[in-house]
């Protein structure tokens, strides 16, 4: 018989140890809640002004320069903290794509910004059949449990 180990008590113990054993907060300054300078238009390259380690992510600024590489993998960085992101991006920015029951495609809302990597360009109702068959995991991140009611036209 397989016996499942309940990990919740261990997790709680780890939390308590951290909270009470190391109760002091790090003295390192936090990243400012708002970027102090106005930001230029287009894709931002932090390396134009910064060349050290960000106090928000505790990673080099080179890691978060908004290249195609970073944009494709931004979720990996965001899952370790959103402080640096929110210095420049309002919550509304993330939720342009990571929305709940959104009805407008991101590329429709940002139609006057064709330089953005907004997903679902063209008549995506057609192409999603192929992309969805080949890599449904990429669809799931936004449509798995934050569904557009239009999906139900065909997916019942």
């Amino acid at each position: 018989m397989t016996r499942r180990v309940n990990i919740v008590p261990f997790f709680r113990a780890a939390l308590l140890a951290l909270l009470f054993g190391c109760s002091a907060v790090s003295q390192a300054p936090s990243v400012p809640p708002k970027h102090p300078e106005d930001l230029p238009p287009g894709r931002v390259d932090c390396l134009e002004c910064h060349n050290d380690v960000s106090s928000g992510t505790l990673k080099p600024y080179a890691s978060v320069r908004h290249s195609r590489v970073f944009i494709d993998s931004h979720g990996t960085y965001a899952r370790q903290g959103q402080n640096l992101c929110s210095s420049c991006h309002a919550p509304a920015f993330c939720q342009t794509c990571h929305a709940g029951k959104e009805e407008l495609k991101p590329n429709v809302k940002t139609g006057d910004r064709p330089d953005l990597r907004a997903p679902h360009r063209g008549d995506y109702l057609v192409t999603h059949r192929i992309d969805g068959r080949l890599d449904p995991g990429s669809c799931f991140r936004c449509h798995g449990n934050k569904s557009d009611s239009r999906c139900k036209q065909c997916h019942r």
Partner: protein
Amino acid sequence: MVDLNRLFWENDVDTNTVLGARMGRPTTVATLGKRLLPAIVSISLSLPLLLPGTAPAADLTFSSKTYGLSYERELPGGEKNQYAPLYEYLSADAANLGGKPVSLHFYGWGRVDLAEESGSGKTSGEIGSLYMEYRHPQGNAQAKLGRFFLTEGAAMETIDGAFVKTTTPLGLGVSVYGGAPVEYSILSGTEGGSSLYGGRVFFVRAGFAELGASYLKENGMFQEGKDRELIGGDLWLRVAPPVEFTAQATYNRSVGEMASQRYAVRIVPGANFDISAGYESYTYKGLFQATLNPAFVSPVVDIGDGVQTIFGVVDWAFVPGWTLEVAGKNIRHDKSDPGDADRGEVGVRYSYNDKKDVAGLSAAFVSADREENEYQEYRGFASYSPSRLRLTLDAITQRYKQEINGRKNQYQVVATAGYQLLAALQISGNLTYTQSPTFEEDYAGLVRLTYDLSTSTGGKK
């Protein structure tokens, strides 16, 4: 039961859609956790008022985006319907409340149809986020209360609840969160979760490494009648100054299956070159277990399938203003249907006019085991922003190896024109022309009114 969205946008009508098919209103999960929502919202809203001198010191940012759309759709039988949905997106952020590192954030949208019903009912909308945040001046310690979008370890959720995170002097840190998930189910028999909680413990050494372990539990009746319980691990490691390694893995304990894994090496030697390559995999059973969308359950997908992907991406600014982007991935399925595929993409971008404008060309191809999955895509775009005027043109075509609805290609051209009426007010319009397997010939119009106001400089994008 109380649903915040319904308080603002009452909508009880199930009716036809933009394409004429019947469609149900998405079921908004309203459970015990959700009943606490008005209290959470009230607390979030009232706390700033407790801080003396709030209004004079606050740093306010307000944004309104209004979209008026117009298009026509042919219904089964040849009848044509006109649609004119009007959308309003509001975003407001008040920071530095009472001179303290406390802020309040709001984001939401609503729709009203001026002609035929364009979605589920004549009106719709959603509160995307409404929360209060405290950011401690040191250690990136923070707390959030209300409705917010959260990414933390295994979690990528919108919740009505609370989140706390802190880092100790040793570099050890912890974050915990809990509340009611904000989810919308269109899957029969599953309403979604009633409560969700979790956390992450991590160790971070600035500029060198961050290692985290996370746990998430969502109570609810998901696939196989089980809760969602995830255990996650994440790593960022700077192997050498220009080289970093990232890893992210999530195990779905509810179904005893690895949900997803992603490992990548990235080299960033400077501001002009960025390259990454890696491996990604997921199993349908592990990743889709808590889905609320019928597109991710049997028989639409074979739940026994899994995907393994090898990918590479290059971003190279080879001349000032010019950037070359090359990306490729090999996708392998456990099952012969849908089979394996390769996707390649190459593009070049040119930014000019002090980076206000960008032009680009790109080409992509998908070659696959099955002809039905093969297509090519070509795209070109450009913008021109002299003074207060802004013009853009964006054209895309896709060519399918196998006919879809009797066609092997689609074309879409989007032209926009905008004018900055005031420093904070801009008006613009889109005209979209489409030929595709769905539309023999389609014109759609959009008018966009954008108002952005801020009481301080500095950046919110």
